């Protein structure tokens, strides 16, 4: 009798195991999500459905300030990291091969593997050594640094997938490098830019450790503030903020997914003239 090749999915218990993992991942999220709509001040005791805590959160001046900080930092870090990632990706993918290309890629993507606590402490020491304590600006710089690889990777992947053929065709059709960049490269790169930007934004918005080290009293971000609130125990407000963060991140991820469907089904932004 011929033996069938080993297939994981036909192993007894595989299904159960999968469901167990899913449960561990998602039940806590689901509980948090559901209880953020709980009217009771006791977070573990359900009374009835209400948006009350969202209203409370929305009216809390501290929370609003922190949310505002988080968004400013995330928007700025995203914009700067994308602005750096695009030319970096072009240099890596389209530039002449240069010595140390592999090293450059390694150095740029290093933050992905360096333990965050190390980066956080190093960043803190760096800012205190140069004596820079400019609240939000410190945060923006720190966030930009770890956002760059997240912005770079999708853009670089997209450039690689596109190949240089379209740009060559545009050069053949009398385009100057700058006009080719604007009319051909950027529009074709847009799915990569959008997913790089969304990734960078979400990573910045969710960051705790580095923000915790770098932020000062006036420049606290939302996750850091939530952590502070948690020391007094889990409150309904914490649930509500977490749900807001969760929904915002998921919505952005969905947006990125829509914009980065494989080529063919794509509708990149139209060029203007």
């Amino acid at each position, binding site marked *: 009798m011929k033996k069938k090749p080993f297939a994981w999915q036909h192993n007894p218990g595989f299904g159960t195991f999968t469901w167990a993992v899913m449960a561990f991942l998602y039940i806590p999220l689901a509980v948090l999500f559901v209880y953020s709509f709980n009217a009771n001040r006791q977070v573990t005791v359900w009374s009835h459905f209400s948006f009350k805590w969202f209203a409370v959160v929305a009216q809390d001046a501290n929370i609003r300030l922190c949310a505002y900080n988080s968004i400013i930092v995330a928007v700025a870090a995203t914009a700067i990291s994308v602005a750096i990632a695009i030319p970096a990706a072009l240099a890596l993918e389209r530039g002449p091969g240069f010595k140390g290309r592999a090293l450059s890629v390694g150095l740029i993507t290093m933050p992905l593997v360096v333990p965050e606590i190390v980066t956080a402490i190093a960043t803190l020491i760096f800012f205190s050594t140069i004596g820079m304590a400019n609240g939000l600006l410190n945060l923006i710089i720190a966030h930009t640094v770890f956002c760059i690889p997240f912005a770079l990777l999708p853009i670089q992947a997209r450039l690689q997938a596109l190949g240089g053929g379209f740009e060559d*065709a545009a050069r*053949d*059709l009398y385009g100057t490098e700058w006009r080719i960049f604007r009319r051909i490269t950027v529009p*074709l790169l847009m799915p990569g830019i959008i997913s790089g930007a969304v990734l960078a934004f979400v990573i910045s918005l969710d960051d705790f450790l580095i923000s915790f080290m770098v932020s000062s009293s006036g420049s606290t971000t939302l996750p850091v503030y939530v952590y502070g609130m948690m020391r007094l125990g889990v409150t309904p407000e914490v649930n509500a903020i977490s749900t807001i963060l969760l929904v915002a991140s998921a919505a952005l991820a969905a947006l990125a997914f829509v914009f980065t469907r494989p080529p063919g089904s794509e509708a990149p932004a139209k060029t203007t003239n």
Partner: protein
Amino acid sequence: MSDSKPSPCIEIHAVDKIFGSEASGYRALDNVSLTIKDKEFFTLLGPSGCGKTTLLRMLAGFETPTRGDIYLHGRNVVELPPRARRVNMVFQNYALFPHLTVAQNIAFGLEMLDWKKPQIGERVAKMLSLVRLEEFSARKPAQLSGGQQQRVALARALAPQPEVLLLDEPLSALDLKLRKEMQSELKRLQRETGITFILVTHDQEEALAMSDRLAVMSGGRVLQAGTPEEIYSRPASRFVADFIGEANIIPGEALGRSGTLAIRPEHITLGAGTPARLRGAVREITFLGADTLFEIAVPHGTEILKIRARLRGRAPDVEVDGHVWLHWPDEVEWGVDG
């Protein structure tokens, strides 16, 4: 240049291209010299990897020669970037801009040349009708068939009125029927526009059918350049003879002479009775519709020469294993190198 003829469209003079370092790099082009006349349909023919694309990209301005010069209407262009040459290219995979419509694709080169809007509109309309794609102007390339994409690529490259149009294996992605259609379409476009076309192909039938003149390339070198008739009837080497059609290679000693000669299968006649040049045994007879193909084994010393003869019309009265005499007139044979 003693005569008063205008300078040729393109003059390629002793061009070498070495990828990598001079010492250890890959020599993709080796002392290539060619002259291409104005309004000519010129073809670069050769097997894959022989350097055709490299030479074409050099004419477009994407590669610079390691040595040698290229003149476009008398002007040395080797240092000029693509946008400074009135040369346009139809890329092998078309490279149509996927985010632009057909009309925007065709207009792209004109916009880059800073044509005025009304002139661009006029020219695009003219190009669309030239390639018969008027109804498709608002479509995106992904919504077109392969043949239609090809025509858009042609219109886009012809729109800026280049001095030379370069076509890199433009028909290889199309199926046979469409390929035949596009062959005559290309000929028509060249006649109507009066632009010099330089086509790259590895398909010898295509090259013979379409070109005014062609160059046969192999291993980075031009082996022979001439009209299809010249190259077909007088190939300069065994490689060319074999690559263009089919040739029997016969050592001279078999006929009591020196050297080596080549002869096309269709130039051989067979006879059962009268003694002629060679005698052999028929090994195989293949009926090919209009033609019949004979494979004949001719003893030559200790070897056996396999000779193919292709006869038109009714086959002579010979059978497999029967003996025949092979004959051909002097003027159809030619000498080749070893």
